[in-house]
């Protein structure tokens, strides 16, 4: 009997406790208003700004990020592009974009034939589970892209981050 009463008491208090915890977690995590986030459309626009509206062919660009991330604060990100990287045929720039951080841009990396390899490695912030896209500008003026979908369990917009 006693245990039954106890369990009803717990179930009574449980929902409010859950709501409180959910609210507290929400307040801590979502310091950025939803409207302040970039959208897939904004990312598409940012890519368009980078390419000048030229067509982007998918493939030949590898975005290497662990698919499941515990934290979005410092995400190891590697981009590789298929290119011989000689004076005639090389990657001029690699731009990285995301669709759910406050801004769609992550970085633009300018390479030269003296780079030897079309490779760049950095660490980025991810505010949510989302798609990360890399667009490469080739020396002949064409554009290629690659992308990856990643899951972030603790996004990079937590206070004090």
């Amino acid at each position, binding site marked *: 009997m006693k245990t039954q009463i106890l369990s009803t008491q717990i179930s009574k208090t449980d929902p409010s406790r859950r709501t409180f915890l959910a609210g507290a977690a929400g307040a801590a995590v979502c310091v950025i208003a939803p409207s302040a986030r970039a959208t897939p459309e904004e990312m598409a626009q940012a890519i368009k700004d980078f390419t000048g509206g030229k067509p982007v062919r998918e493939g030949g660009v590898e975005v290497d990020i662990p698919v499941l991330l515990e934290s979005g604060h410092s995400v190891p990100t590697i981009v590789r592009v298929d290119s011989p990287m000689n004076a005639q045929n090389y990657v001029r720039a690699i731009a990285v974009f995301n669709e759910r951080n406050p801004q769609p841009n992550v*970085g633009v990396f300018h390479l030269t034939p003296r*780079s030897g390899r079309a490779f760049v490695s950095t660490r980025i912030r991810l505010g949510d589970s989302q798609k990360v896209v890399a667009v490469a500008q080739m020396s002949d003026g064409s554009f290629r892209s690659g992308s990856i979908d990643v899951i972030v369990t603790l996004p990079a917009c937590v*206070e004090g981050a």
Partner: protein
Amino acid sequence: MARALINVPAKAKKGEIIEIKTMLSHPMETGFRPAADGKLVPRNIIKRFVCTYDGEAVFSADLFPAISANPFLSFTLVATNSGVITFSWTDDNGQTQVQTAKIEVA
């Protein structure tokens, strides 16, 4: 301005592709984060990184707030000749930090 870590091989063979690793101690304040008083902390990020090899810019980067604090950048270069590789980071306040590394190419 801050402490920088640079990893450049001291010696390389001519034509060898070497990997360079750089990291600068910097908060990369996004401008989206509120401080304890509720006001947004003003943005201060490293927005430009340039690597020159014997005076020629061989790699550069335009960075945005989505780059993590203490920006880490790694890239490759072809070891062409002995010389000095220079790294420079510029932040929103216009402060620039310059570091150099020597490489011996045989």
